[in-house]
């Protein structure tokens, strides 16, 4: 493991974990092992995508968040909310009602995280115009995808566009707005209500920037439960409805699949789901997809509507957001929309602060920094694969025979961790091998040297 510390939002609750291997098998970066009967995370490989959490049968994987009481350390308490939050509520709850409910929890302001999207769309299009190379440009929006590229597709790191996500732009803008209204920077706490784990990791240990403009993170399901419970109890709303700054249509739909690509000039593609993303990144790396300007990649199915911390069904969330876009467009036609966004007053300042620093590749695949040593290790892996059964059962604590072989040469595991090797060594000569009943005769002959 590398010496650098990566902040991960995903935590394994050891007392709950039953060591069942589900998470290990689902992990797209082979970041999990079973040790001493518990799942263990390899910190430098984890991209915080949350697939492990999704498949865990006993809820042993949790997402850490800041203590909710932390918000009260600040005089100005901003809830920075993603538009998918609205989609969690039944349709008869209007956005204003939901935002009032959030204010009742103790926030002083609610600001939607996608307010930065219009500006970002303009900046991406401008970037594409000004830079002919490299292609395709890959979106930096989904933090799990950025980390996936860093660890599994290091040669594509240079394709990632070095522009911040809308929520960061929105946070910078709203902080500036509040300061211009006379608040001291120290009084302002901006808390992002996150639909996923990857955003937490991105805020706590940002990639491509020194620090995040966001003060803390609250899990979306927690806020939803609090607000929805208060609705159910029919507590009288004592809050003033938040001041109205409406998202534009392209901003409302930004976090859905196609939300970026739809507004980018030239040939674009939108892909959601981590395995779909991996498959396509492989192709980009081969150079077998050409003539694309921009690729939008999102780790979750149905993008942020399918975030690991969403409560409602992802398709229903997506539907509600799309309805909101349609309603906006209809209202716009009738001249009902007053487009008065504070963010537009800060355009110049934001354009100066929108760039990300370099994103570094950090390959998890390399066997050794030294190539000759890596070659030796690879030879050993090939030899080991000749012995291992190729069943990928996971009983050794590694997700596949190949990863076990890699772990063995990296001295993280032993050949005898394989239960089939153990069995083959234990069966006395001339005695029936019970494993043959299931796996066939002679299947494991190769296990005994």
């Amino acid at each position, binding site marked *: 493991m590398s010496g650098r510390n990566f902040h991960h939002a995903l935590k394994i609750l050891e007392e709950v974990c039953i060591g069942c291997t589900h998470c290990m098998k689902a992990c797209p970066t082979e970041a999990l092992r079973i040790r001493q009967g518990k799942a263990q995370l390899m910190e430098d490989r984890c991209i915080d995508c949350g697939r492990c959490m999704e498949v865990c049968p006993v809820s042993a994987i949790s997402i850490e968040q800041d203590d909710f009481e932390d918000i009260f350390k600040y005089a100005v308490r901003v809830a920075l909310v993603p538009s998918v939050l609205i989609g969690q509520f039944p349709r008869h709850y209007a956005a204003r009602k939901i935002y009032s409910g959030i204010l009742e929890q103790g926030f002083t302001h609610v600001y939607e995280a996608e307010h930065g999207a219009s500006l970002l769309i303009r900046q991406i299009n401008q970037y594409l115009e000004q830079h002919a190379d490299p292609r395709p440009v890959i979106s930096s929006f989904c933090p799990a995808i950025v980390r996936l590229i860093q660890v599994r597709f*290091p*040669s*594509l*790191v*240079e394709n990632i566009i070095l522009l911040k996500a809308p929520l960061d732009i929105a946070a910078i803008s709203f902080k500036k707005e509040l300061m211009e209204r006379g608040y001291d920077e120290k009084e302002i706490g901006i808390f992002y209500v996150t639909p996923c784990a990857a955003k937490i990791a991105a805020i706590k240990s940002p990639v491509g920037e020194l620090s995040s403009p966001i003060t803390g993170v609250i899990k979306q399901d927690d806020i939803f439960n609090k607000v929805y419970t208060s609705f159910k109890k029919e507590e009288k709303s004592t809050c003033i409805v938040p001041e109205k700054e409406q998202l534009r249509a392209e901003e409302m739909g930004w976090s859905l699949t196609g939300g970026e690509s739809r507004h980018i000039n030239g040939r674009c593609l939108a892909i959601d789901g981590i395995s779909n993303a991996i498959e396509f990144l*492989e*192709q980009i*790396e*081969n*150079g*077998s997809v050409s003539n694309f300007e921009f690729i939008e990649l999102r780790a979750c199915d149905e993008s942020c509507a399918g975030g690991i911390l969403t409560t409602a069904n992802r398709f229903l969330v997506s539907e509600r957001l799309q309805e909101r876009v349609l309603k906006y467009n209809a209202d716009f036609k009738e001249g009902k929309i007053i487009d008065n966004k504070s963010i537009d007053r800060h355009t110049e300042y934001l354009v100066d602060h929108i760039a990300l620093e370099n994103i570094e*590749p950090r*390959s998890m*695949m*390399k*066997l*050794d*920094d*030294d*190539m*000759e040593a*890596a*070659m030796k290790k*690879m*030879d050993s892996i090939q030899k080991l694969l000749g012995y291992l059964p190729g069943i990928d059962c996971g009983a050794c604590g590694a997700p596949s025979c190949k990863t076990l072989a890699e772990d063995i040469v990296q001295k993280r595991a032993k050949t005898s961790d394989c239960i089939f090797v153990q069995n083959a060594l234990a069966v006395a000569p001339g005695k029936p091998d019970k494993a043959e009943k299931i796996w066939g005769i002679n299947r494991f002959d190769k296990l005994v040297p």
Partner: protein
Amino acid sequence: MEFSYIIEGGDFSKAGSASSEVKKILKQLNLAPEKIKKIAVAMYEAEVNIVAHAYKGVMEGKIDAEKVFLRFRDEGPGIEDVDKAMQEGFSTASEEVRQMGFGAGMGLPNIRKNSDSLKVSSEVGKGTTVEITSYINN
């Protein structure tokens, strides 16, 4: 280290699978990302050439501390005029193949662009051998 992969002619659904395997090897050997990218493009083109034109072929590779050497041998129609085939845009691919996004006549020129040395030898009616060398530290 050495390795070899069989490449089936005419099966586009598998085109690129040998290259993907080798790409994994290069990543494990910790080659520089920009080097891997170039080799990946070159070998993918060469692999697709076999799928598109030949009956069957084999990709043989040898990696040492200095270079990555890849040889693509196929049994196929061969190339009549190798010099012509090296020109950008020259293609003999059928309409069917072009519709799948292959056969734009950029194959060999693209391989040359992404490798340090390219050697093509061919015998009409027998087959073609493409040898690609990429130096690791240049």
